[in-house]
């Protein structure tokens, strides 16, 4: 129970840092919806449901020695265009397709969000840093993307049970979801170590 409370607080502080960085990148205030932390299997965790829409996903693997995981930044194609307008300093409505430039901008955004999440997260768990790998970009129908995201998570997290940390953001047509998923066994081990050290 105590572990869960500590994890909640660490995740909340890390999500706030990530959301603040996102707001700065998009140059706009964002309404933030922090979801409850889930501990479940990769197949059962809640990933955003965009029905049958075309969506964009930027998946960033976390292939650190200490903790394995992955993060997905998801938005509808329409929202991805609006976000690219902001990131690339274009007038609203200018972006209408995703080329290498837009893909690179969205990957950069995903890296910045995850980096800003991982820094306070790792510091709080007394592990200094957590390394993430190059982002994987996908633009497809929602069910296919979600299926592929789950398979990527299974590939990078060598464990059935995971911790799913998620928040949504929204302002005008800039709407998206961020999920950061970790191997729960590794996180629990770190929390136990943290408790031992904290208690002296």
């Amino acid at each position: 129970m105590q572990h869960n409370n500590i994890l909640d607080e660490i995740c909340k502080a890390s999500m706030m840092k990530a959301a603040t960085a996102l707001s700065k990148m998009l140059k706009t205030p964002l309404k933030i919806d922090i979801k409850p932390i889930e501990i479940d299997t990769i197949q059962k965790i809640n990933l955003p449901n965009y029905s049958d829409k075309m969506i964009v996903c930027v998946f960033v693997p976390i292939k650190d020695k200490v903790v394995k995981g992955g993060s997905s930044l998801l938005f509808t194609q329409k929202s991805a265009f609006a976000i690219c307008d902001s990131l690339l300093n274009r007038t609203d409505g200018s972006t209408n397709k995703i080329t290498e430039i837009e893909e690179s901008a969205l990957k950069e955004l995903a890296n910045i969000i995850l980096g800003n999440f991982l820094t306070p997260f790792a510091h709080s768990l007394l592990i200094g840093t957590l390394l993430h790998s190059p982002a994987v970009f996908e633009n497809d129908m929602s069910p296919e993307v979600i299926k592929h995201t789950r398979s990527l998570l299974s590939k990078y997290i060598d464990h059935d049970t995971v911790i799913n940390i998620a928040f949504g953001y929204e302002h005008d047509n800039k709407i998206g979801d961020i999920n950061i998923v970790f191997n729960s066994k590794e996180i629990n081990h770190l929390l136990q170590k943290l408790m031992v050290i904290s208690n002296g």
Partner: protein
Amino acid sequence: MDKITNMHTHDFDSRLILFSEFNPNPIIGLNLLGEFIFVNLSARTQFPTLVRLGKKHPVLSVLIDELSEFKHGTEELIIFSRDVFYLNNIYDQQIFAMPKRNVIFIYMNDVTEQRHIEEELKLVNAKLEEDQR
């Protein structure tokens, strides 16, 4: 300033006010109309005209307009982060609004030196890239 001090005791726990009062970084509390709830010592000394100018002060520029787009009473947290320029300084401003509670909290950090170093690094990087071509 007395007006703000009086509001402290009515609207906030005075111990929490004291806690923020001596924070070395500027902290500002507003309601959704842009009226001050709290301005700590650092904010009062670094921005002496803040209370008089209110939402017209450069550090609060367009903030209330930007936040007014969100519905009053919304449950969610609104987060906004930006750099603001005041005289020769650059401040990182982190804004947390809770419309349901009618509050906006603004936390500021002077990042002038950091931003200048970042600019210098960008120039060095650009030069190195150009040299490699």
